[in-house]
C-alpha cells in the first residue's frame, strides 16, 4: 500500500556527479542552438530581403524589366533645323524644353543627329524633324539587389554569398532541433520536413528533369 508523502528509499541518481554532468551536457546544447539560430537569423535578414526581392523580380523577366523603367517617346520639331550640328542640337533641345546639356552630340548619318545624355538619347531626324527619345531609368533598390543577386559585382561578393549560403544551411538544420517535439524528429517535424524535401523531387520527376 503506497504511503502518500513518503520519500522512496531508492538512491537518487542525480546525487551521482557523473549523472548530473551528463544531464547538464544533454540539456545545455539546445539553448545555445536557439541563441545561434536567432542571432544568425537576425544577421541574415538583410541578405534574405535582397535575395528574395531580387529572386521574385528576376523570376519574371519575361513580364517586366526588373532593373529599369523604359522611356520611349516621339516628338516633332519645327523645320528647318540649323545646318550646324551644335546649333541644331541647341535648337532641338530648346524646342523640347530640355535644359540639361548633352554629354555628346553625334552626327550618325546625313539625316540623323544623336543627342546623348546620361539616362536618355534623342535621335533627331534632321530632315523630317521627328525626334525619338529613348532611355531607361534605373529602379533604385531592385537594380542594386539584382546586381548583387546575379553576382555581377566585384568578386568579393562571392565570399559574402558563400557565407550567406552556409548561414542558410545552418538555419535550416538548426531549425530542425530547436524545439524538441514529443516524438523528437519522428513526429510532425519529420512529416513537414519530408513534405518540403519532396517538392523538388516530385517536380523533377514530373517535369522529366534537366
Amino acid at each position: 500500500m503506497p504511503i502518500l508523502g513518503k520519500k522512496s528509499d531508492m538512491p537518487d541518481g542525480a546525487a551521482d556527479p557523473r549523472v548530473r554532468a551528463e544531464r547538464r551536457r544533454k540539456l545545455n546544447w539546445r539553448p545555445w542552438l536557439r541563441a545561434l539560430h536567432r542571432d544568425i537569423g537576425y544577421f541574415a535578414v538583410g541578405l534574405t530581403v535582397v535575395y528574395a526581392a531580387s529572386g521574385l523580380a528576376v523570376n519574371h523577366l519575361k513580364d517586366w524589366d526588373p532593373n529599369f523603367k523604359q522611356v520611349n517617346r516621339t516628338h516633332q520639331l519645327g523645320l528647318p533645323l540649323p545646318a550646324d550640328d551644335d546649333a541644331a542640337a541647341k535648337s532641338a533641345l530648346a524646342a523640347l524644353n530640355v535644359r540639361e546639356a548633352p554629354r555628346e552630340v553625334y552626327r550618325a548619318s546625313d539625316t540623323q543627329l544623336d543627342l546623348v545624355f546620361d539616362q536618355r538619347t534623342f535621335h533627331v531626324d534632321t530632315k523630317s524633324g521627328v525626334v525619338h527619345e529613348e532611355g531607361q531609368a534605373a529602379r533604385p533598390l531592385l537594380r542594386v539587389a539584382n546586381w548583387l543577386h546575379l553576382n555581377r559585382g566585384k568578386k568579393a561578393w562571392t565570399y559574402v554569398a558563400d557565407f550567406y549560403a552556409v548561414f542558410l544551411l545552418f538555419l535550416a538544420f538548426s531549425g530542425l532541433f530547436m524545439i524538441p517535439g514529443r516524438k523528437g524528429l519522428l513526429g510532425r517535424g519529420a512529416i513537414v520536413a519530408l513534405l518540403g524535401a519532396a517538392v523538388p523531387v516530385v517536380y523533377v520527376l514530373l517535369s522529366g528533369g534537366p
Partner: protein
Amino acid sequence: MNRFNPEFEEALARRRFIQAAAGGTVIMALGSFYVLSDDLTREAKAQTRSDGRPRLPPGQRVIEALKPMGGEPGDPSPGNYRLRVHGEVEAPFELGFAELLALPQTEQALDVHCVTTWSVLGAKWQGVRVADLAERAKLKKSARYVIFEAAHGYTSNVALRDALKPTVMVAHRLNGSPLVRAHGAPVRAVLPEFYFWKSAKWLTGIRFSDHDEPGYWETRGYSNHADPWKEERYA
C-alpha cells in the same frame, strides 16, 4: 431540416466558397488558353521555313516587339564606341561607330527567339555581317569558335561556322530606327538561329578562338548550343 442551423449555414458558406474557387480556376484556365492561342502565334505555327523547320520553334509565343530583358548596360555613346575584332586572326582591328557605318551594310528581316518563350518575327535589323568582319580580320586556320564580348564582361559563344552564316550580324538599327539603349545601343550582335541571349547587347568585341569558352549564361546553367528548334534552353 432547420435552415437557421449554424452548422448548415457554415456548410452552405463552404459550398459557396468551393463553387467560387472552382469557377475562378476555370475562368483562369480558359484565360490562359486564350492567351496561349493568340492569332500571331497560331499564324506562325502554320508557317514553315525554307529549311523545312517550323517558323516558330517549340514552346515559343509570338509578340509584336522586343522586350527589354535586363543586363548591365554599356556606354550608349556612339562617339565613344569601339568594336575590337581580335583573337585567332592575322589582322586584328578596331572600329569606331562611324567606321562601322561606313562598311557594307546588310538589312534583313529576321526572327528572334528568347529563351523565356517569346519570339519576335520579321523584325528588320541593319548592320554589318560578322562574316565580313572575319574576312577583313583574316582568320587563322586555328579559329574554331567566336566569343562575342560585351560591356561589363558579358560574353556569349558560338561555333565559327554558325557565326559566319549570312544572317549573323552586328546590328545598329532595328525597324528603321537606331537601336535603343534597352536593346544594346549603339551596337549589338544578332544571331537569329540561337536563343537570344547569344545575341550580346552593348557589343564591344568579337574574339575568334581556337577553343570553346562558355559565356555568361552558358556558365550559369543555360545550354551551350542554345538551338531553339531543339529547345536547348538549359544545360
